[in-house]
């Protein structure tokens, strides 16, 4: 049959199905294929907290959205062009974000009476029959039936056969977008290398999906999305949590310190542990502790012993670590605290994203307890900033918060990865052995960065005691002296402030250095704000975008940079946190713009809001 080829600049596909339908895997495979083809892309996995929520229900819908194109792609896309719906619940949950006239590929088997009941759709309201999908390009395929037919002779049970359905959809989409299936074939072969029958079945169904596009007349259109014109170099696809783990490992290699990661499983931070635990041959030591507190405390022990010590968690797990962060601040030992933020408070929405732990990182401890805070802005930026977090912790002998969030942690993008030789060096010097004739060792004697010596147990002549009680400056002895306490509180703050001399200045990401309005963002909203800014500038607005990555201390020029704009708007996925700090520190009448839905900003939302403010 004949098909027409159309070339598109970019496409958004949303895979949606039951959480057992393998939509995350399907999305990831499509992402790799698009990345290897040279498209720019951004992804957004959106899944329920329950591993196997009740089958067929709205609560159980798992989605994976990918935006890929031949142009610069900053976000997973506000609306999708193509929606794959494996059942009626998946359709119901995602139809509102499908473009008018968009393509819907449905598995008709997922629209039977049972699925309708589970999704709470009345019998007479079957969207495939009641005309409600008029205006969309609906492709009805009985994926279940075709998959079962294709694997009739496979010797596998129905359950195993049905698990291959997602491969049919993937094969079909590979055909639609001219993507080779070879990489996925290789992936399946390696994933199921211990179960040849299952590997064969998945590959067969993948090919069946491809052939279905080729042979049926349902699809008259195929699409080309050319490789993106990106900066020259070698690229790979990277997810945020993976990049975080690599950044930490890189810091371990560059500082020549073995890495210790003390942690407790929690969504969405666990993948950092999973990733790190694979690389023991890099001298990476991961410790799954009995709880969050032991996670950070074991890391403090490792820091005392001279390791690059890291703990990681999310939401309520960070709350549990609070007291120990205070201890690390008093001990003035290097420690990195990874917080992959999720929607709170309490258990909140564990699998949904939010930026609501900034004030916690800033202020959330007893007493005056300042620490360094960094926030990554995209999946690949997690590498750079996790590395920076380690560098600052080690070179300044101080606890550092590294903030990521669920959105960038699970999102993927192409990454022009650095050569390790080009990474900024990390210099660590331990205090040297002393003879009894030398002066007494002073554990709280400070250098020009106000950091104290790192004196490792096992080094002769450096025996000393540290602890959570207030220290006398220089000697480190316990001190209840009034003036000394005030001095130490001020010194610990000044030590944080001085880090501003060792970090880059704030830059404008897009737009002029002065204008009507500055969009001041931080963290995972980068892509949406970047896209929105580009559109506003194109429409003639005098708008610029700056994205803060060094949250505490701020870059030295941040105040001056903001002063060149008539208005500063701070969009955040919280109830207004950075905006509070900005207003407090700079006395700038910054305007908050908040979204607290567990979902990222859509760029059109930002565009509309900014226009509203500029009126």
């Amino acid at each position, binding site marked *: 049959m004949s098909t027409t080829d159309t070339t598109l600049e970019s496409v958004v596909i949303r895979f949606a199905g039951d959480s057992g339908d393998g939509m995350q895997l399907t999305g990831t495979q499509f992402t790799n294929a698009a990345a290897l083809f040279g498209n720019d892309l951004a992804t957004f996995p959106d899944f329920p907290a329950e591993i196997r929520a009740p089958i067929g229900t709205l609560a159980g819908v798992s989605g994976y959205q990918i935006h890929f194109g031949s142009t610069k792609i900053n976000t997973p896309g506000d609306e999708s062009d193509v929606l794959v719906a494996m059942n009626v619940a998946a359709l119901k949950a995602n139809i509102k974000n499908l473009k008018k006239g968009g393509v819907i590929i449905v598995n008709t088997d997922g629209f039977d009476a049972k699925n309708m009941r589970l999704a709470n759709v009345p019998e007479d309201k079957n969207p495939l029959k009641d005309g409600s999908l008029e205006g969309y390009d609906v492709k009805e395929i009985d994926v279940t039936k075709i998959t079962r037919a294709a694997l009739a002779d496979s010797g596998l049970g129905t359950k195993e056969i049905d698990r291959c359905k997602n491969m049919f959809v993937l094969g079909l989409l590979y055909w639609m977008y001219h993507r080779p299936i070879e990489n996925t074939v290789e992936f399946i072969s390696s994933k199921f290398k211990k179960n040849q029958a299952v590997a064969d079945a998945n590959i067969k169904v993948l090919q069946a999906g491809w052939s279905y596009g080729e042979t049926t007349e349902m699809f008259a259109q195929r699409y080309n999305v050319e490789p993106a014109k990106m900066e020259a170099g070698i690229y790979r696809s990277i997810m945020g949590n993976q990049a975080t783990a690599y950044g930490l490992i890189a810091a371990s290699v560059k500082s020549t310190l073995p890495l210790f990661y003390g942690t407790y499983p929690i969504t969405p931070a666990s993948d950092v542990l999973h990733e790190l635990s694979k690389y023991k041959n890099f001298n990476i030591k991961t410790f799954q502790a009995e709880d969050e507190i032991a996670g950070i405390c074991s890391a403090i*022990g490792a820091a005392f012993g001279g390791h690059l010590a890291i703990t990681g968690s999310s939401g309520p797990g960070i709350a549990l670590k609070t007291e120990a962060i205070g201890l690390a601040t008093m001990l003035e030992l290097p420690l990195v605290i990874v917080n992959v933020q999720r929607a709170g408070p309490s258990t909140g929405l564990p699998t949904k994203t939010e930026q609501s732990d900034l004030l916690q990182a800033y202020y959330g401890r007893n007493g005056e307890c300042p620490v360094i805070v960094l926030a990554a802005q995209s999946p690949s930026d997690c590498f750079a900033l996790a590395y920076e977090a380690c560098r600052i912790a080690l070179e300044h002998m101080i606890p550092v918060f590294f903030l990521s969030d669920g959105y960038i942690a699970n999102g993927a993008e192409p990454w022009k990865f650095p050569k390790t030789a080009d990474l900024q060096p990390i210099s660590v010097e331990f205090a040297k052995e002393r003879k009894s004739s030398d002066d007494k060792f002073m554990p709280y004697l400070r250098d020009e960065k106000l950091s104290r010596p790192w004196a490792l147990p096992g080094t002769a002549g450096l025996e000393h005691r540290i602890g959570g009680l207030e220290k006398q400056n220089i000697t480190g002895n316990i001190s209840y002296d009034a003036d000394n306490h005030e001095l130490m509180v001020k010194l610990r703050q000044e030590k944080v402030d001085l880090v501003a001399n060792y970090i880059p200045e704030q830059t404008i990401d897009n737009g002029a250095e002065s204008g009507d309005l500055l969009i001041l963002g931080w963290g995972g909203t980068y892509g949406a704000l970047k896209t929105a800014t580009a559109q506003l500038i194109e429409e003639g607005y005098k708008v610029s975008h700056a994205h803060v990555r060094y949250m505490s201390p701020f870059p030295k020029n941040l105040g001056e940079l903001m002063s060149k704009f008539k208005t500063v708007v701070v969009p955040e996925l919280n109830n207004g946190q950075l905006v509070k700090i900005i207003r407090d520190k700079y006395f700038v009448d910054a305007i908050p713009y908040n979204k607290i839905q567990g979902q990222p900003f859509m760029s059109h939302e930002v565009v509309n809001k900014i226009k509203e403010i500029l009126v």
Partner: protein
Amino acid sequence: MTIETVKLTSKDFSSDQEVRWCPGCGDYSILKQVQTVLPDLGRPKEEFVFISGIGCSSRFPYYMDTFGMHSIHGRATAIATGLKSTRPDLSVWVITGDGDSMSIGGNHFIHMLRRNPDLNVLLFNNQIYGLTKGQYSPTSEQGKVTKSTPMGSLDYPFNPIALCLGADATFVARTMDRDPKHQQAVIKRGYEHKGTSLIEIYQNCNVFNDGAFEIFTEKGSKKQQTLIMEHGKPLIFGENAQLGIKLDGFKPMVVNLADVSVDDLWIHDETDLVKATILSRFYDDPSVEGHFPRPFGVFYLNNNKMPFDELFNNQINNAIESYGAGDLDKLIAGRETWVVN
């Protein structure tokens, strides 16, 4: 070149900080015994690290001229586990109390024991909260009248030895502040054990719980009320060593040596978990008629459970041996890359 060996003394282990426990506190004795034992261990003093939590006992590291950390309440066990796992070359000691280890730090305490890192844990049990001025603790007897329990405490107490055996500890012993020789011997044995050595030390708080262990520590009653366990020897006690413990199946009984031959007594076997468990239950109120004597010494010793720190580092070494040292550039590039020209 000559190798210079300087014999350390207890003075070498005393820091320049003034010891600030209440006069008469049992902690003084424990500090002294540790400072007496350490020079004999043949180890340079920079290799010793003392980590404590919060409580009176937890001031201990400040008085030792070794490396030390006075950390936060209940967490010394977790901090020590992290330190020992990453620095197996060090001799790491945990100083904790009954509240620190079994109340706020209960979780870390049992998990340390099951993991079995090579730590030496000195549990100062005074059956009271001293630093916060006298509330009942998880080892206080039921009905204890304290500031927080004017009508008597309702909680049933922990039996620390039984708790440790339940958590699969590999070295469990009990000693007392008032018996320096016994204390030193037990501490030394704890040090020699590879794995977590848990030593419960009955320690008198003369301000808030004076005399809690008097019956076990004072001359007049000690011999009658305590049972000093020695590996391979029969369990004998009493003012004139006239009593013994005999096992009838799993049932222990106190017998008079006038009636029973020494050969029929229970011979203490530290490596027998079942027998250690029975001994751990010799925990009766000494004022009750027909109670068993309170055992002191090593209840249980298991040398067949590899310490966590060893397992932990073996795994790293095996990984390096199997896969070769990691190549960072290769790791970052991953399996699939593409070139943009």
